[in-house]
């Protein structure tokens, strides 16, 4: 009996300790309040994070080149000749080269997954589920998720995939994700900058305070770019529950035909 009681108490203590990591915060604190930590050196990333397109800190990015965040000169990105040649054929929906006339954006045209890191350029929420061995990231946009392994290295020769092979670590209070193993079917950003299967991305999530979460993205792709580059943006804690933003091809096609295509012809018909 006594042993059973001790086991029960131990189970409750363990559950409470673990649930602290999973505990969902509500967005009711004040800006500037100290960011909570799950345990020593591990930031508490729980809660729902909104990219905040409205506030003064809501940074809307079109590219990851911080010298040209709105892609007013997307052709000036540090592309290799291989990437520059691919870039000539893109018809992107954003930036200075934007067009909705027969765009070949794989997301816009085919509902392809936006991939990493382009998914962070959309105005939808994200949330984290932290466990000791895996951190899951759930994305409101298209309802996709990633599993970031916390207890292993990359495979020596990973299969190529839309989301890549992601491993993570906690470093200086930040959650750092290292991802390789991508296919080359996605665009890096909203303006059609290409990438190769050698793409290597570092994401660094850091809580600035209780209300704000900073994401810094660093792009390294020696086949496509002559140097690494990076940009950052800020998410805010929100009470708005995540909703449904699936990319249904039938809906996308209907919208394209009934609205967008009619803005592109001379007569509108």
């Amino acid at each position, binding site marked *: 009996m006594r042993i059973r009681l001790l086991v029960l108490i131990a189970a409750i203590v363990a559950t409470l300790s673990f649930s602290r990591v999973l505990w969902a915060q509500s967005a009711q604190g004040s800006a500037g309040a100290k960011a909570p930590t799950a345990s020593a050196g591990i930031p508490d990333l729980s809660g729902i994070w909104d990219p905040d397109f409205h506030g003064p800190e809501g940074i809307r990015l079109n590219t990851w080149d911080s010298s040209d965040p709105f892609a007013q000169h997307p052709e000036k990105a540090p592309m290799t000749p291989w990437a520059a040649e691919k870039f000539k054929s893109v018809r992107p929906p954003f930036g200075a080269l934007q067009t909705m006339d027969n*765009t070949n954006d794989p997301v816009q045209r085919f509902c392809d997954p936006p991939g990493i890191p382009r998914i962070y350029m959309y105005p939808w929420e994200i949330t984290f589920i932290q466990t000791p061995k895996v951190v899951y990231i759930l994305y409101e946009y298209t309802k996709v998720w990633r599993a970031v392994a916390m207890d292993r290295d990359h495979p020596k020769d990973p299969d190529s995939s839309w989301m890549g092979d992601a491993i993570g670590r906690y470093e200086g209070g930040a959650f750092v994700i290292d991802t390789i193993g991508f296919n080359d079917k996605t665009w890096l950003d909203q303006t059609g900058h290409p990438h190769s299967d050698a793409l290597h991305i570092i994401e660094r999530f850091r809580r600035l305070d209780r209300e704000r979460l900073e994401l810094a993205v660093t792009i390294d792709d020696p086949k496509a770019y002559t140097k690494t580059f990076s940009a950052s943006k800020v998410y805010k804690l929100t009470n*708005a529950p995540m909703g449904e*933003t699936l990319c*249904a091809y039938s809906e996308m096609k209907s*919208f394209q035909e*009934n609205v967008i295509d009619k803005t592109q012809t*001379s*007569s*509108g018909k």
Partner: protein
Amino acid sequence: MAKISVFVAAVVALLVLSVPAFAHHGVAGYDMAKTITVHGTVTKFDWSNPHVVVYVDAKNDSGELQHWTIEFASPVHMVRAGWSKNSMKTGDDIVIDTHPSRNGAPIGITSTITFILKTVVNGQPLPTRSE
């Protein structure tokens, strides 16, 4: 009753074009420097992704009936702004500001993730949002 009046908003088109105001596509097809008011009758309210769309029958200044198609942000973002699938229905009277298509077609955009222009249904204003 139905009437379309036109006025020019103080927006610099180049500046607007440089900002990614849309969730899933840019605004190149619309004249963001111009805002018009459409007054007519709702013929369909399509509450679906990627963007909410309202179809409106309205007469222009010449008395000709036009079939307007006006888009908003995604359903999720419209909900967060205070709208719902019941914000309007077929047959409702609607007065709506919109940025018209550049090609002159009766197509407009009234909301993106960053703004919602004035929309009044049966005399009741719906939530708006400034850029």
